């Protein structure tokens, strides 16, 4: 029970974050009450990007060490990445609709998150097109690494081409964060909470996959044992 105490702490932590987001923090002038979405939407984007990093690192580890467990980490990180990218896109879109009316604007942040979505989709398309496990792991590792090294270019280019509709005068998550003290506290608390949730989910997923494999191997063993008898 003591091992699981961190789960309860996490629950309380996020509860406080949510309460803080709704009552403790002030609102930004241009955005009104919708400012509060920031404490939930931005962490989703952050986790989506973090998943990408984890998947790329797992890919490198697989290519170096040739252990399929790294492929498991990569695949499940990508699953979660896709999940959080969709969440970030939807919540961002809702936010955009409320403030600037169109659901989609192709401004730099929206474009970046959409590109991330494309990369994850491409990753899974590749995986489903390859049958053999080792080959699947190898090729998808190469792809996710290749995709990852293009990220610096995207970060540099995307803001240049289009004018940003993201509320830069108030919130600029990439450069200086022009949020006041209270906002910053809740913001970073939320980011930390989401990160912990992410790693928890990732670990759960990898554990599940390993258990499934154990089960499969046991079934296989049983089958072959029975045939011998």
């Amino acid at each position, binding site marked *: 029970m003591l091992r699981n105490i961190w789960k309860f702490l996490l629950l309380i932590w996020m509860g406080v974050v949510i309460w803080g987001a709704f009552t403790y923090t002030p609102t930004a002038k241009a955005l009104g009450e919708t400012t509060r979405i920031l404490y939930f939407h931005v962490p989703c984007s952050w986790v989506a990007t973090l998943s990408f990093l984890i998947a790329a690192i797992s890919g490198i580890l697989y290519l170096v060490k040739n252990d399929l467990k790294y492929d498991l980490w990569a695949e499940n990180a990508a699953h979660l990445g896709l999940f959080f990218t969709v969440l970030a896109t939807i919540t961002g879109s809702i936010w955009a609709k409320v403030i600037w009316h169109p659901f989609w604007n192709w401004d730099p942040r929206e474009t970046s998150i959409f590109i991330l979505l494309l990369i994850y989709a*491409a990753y899974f398309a*590749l995986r489903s*097109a*390859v049958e053999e496990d080792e080959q699947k792991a190898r*090729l998808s590792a*190469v792809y996710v690494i*290749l995709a990852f090294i293009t990220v610096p*270019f995207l970060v540099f*280019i995307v803001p240049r081409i289009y004018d940003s509709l993201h509320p830069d005068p108030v919130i600029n998550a990439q450069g200086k964060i022009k949020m006041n003290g209270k906002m910053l506290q809740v913001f970073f608390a939320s980011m930390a909470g989401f990160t912990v949730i992410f790693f928890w989910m990732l670990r759960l997923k990898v554990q599940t996959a390993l258990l499934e494999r154990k089960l499969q191997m046991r079934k296989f063993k049983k089958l072959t044992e029975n045939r011998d008898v």
Partner: protein
Amino acid sequence: MAHRKSNFIHKSWAVFRKDIQLEFRTRYVINAILMFALTVLTAVSFSIGPLRLRVEIGAALLWIILFFSAMSGLAHIFVREEEQQTADTLRLFSRPVNIFLGKWFFNLLLLYSLEIIIVPLYFVFLNVPDPVLSIFLPVLFLGSFALASASTLIGAIISQASARGALFAVLTFPIVLPVMFSGIHGTQLSFARASFLDCLSDLQVLLSFSVVILTGSVLLFEFVWRK
């Protein structure tokens, strides 16, 4: 020292020569890629008619045509090896680095050859402004360089997968987005009669992207190629 270096280039060149000789005999992929590009160009030109295109749209159309033409042909040198089952023999004879460089050079030449024909036709069929050549040509050259470089590694990846045609475009598009952005933007500048200095950032991006992608591809190709 000089001997080892020339041996390296010699080996890559040997891979390239084999591919180009085969291609000269059959002319398979150059025809396919050319017909595809012509079809797209004709379709676009027919649909738009004599309308004068806005600078942004004209630039975008050019790179769309180039991208999809690349997608129709640049995986061929790997797919052919798999389909004709010559890949394993190739594995015995050459090192991955040489194989990659030889095939990369083939793709580069293929794309440039296509452009020699298609780009002038593009200006014939579509009503776009006359470009500032000092901007247009470097952007086209570097952009195609980047496009071919990225496509080669991904072509190698999909040659080992099923559903290759669609998969190639799906995998390549997110990777070459920086090339598309900068290529289109640079081409726009050439149509809008900007000065050369304006396009420097685009050229910078294209050049650095090419360097990074090529380096990455050379390092990663070995993992794709080994079985």
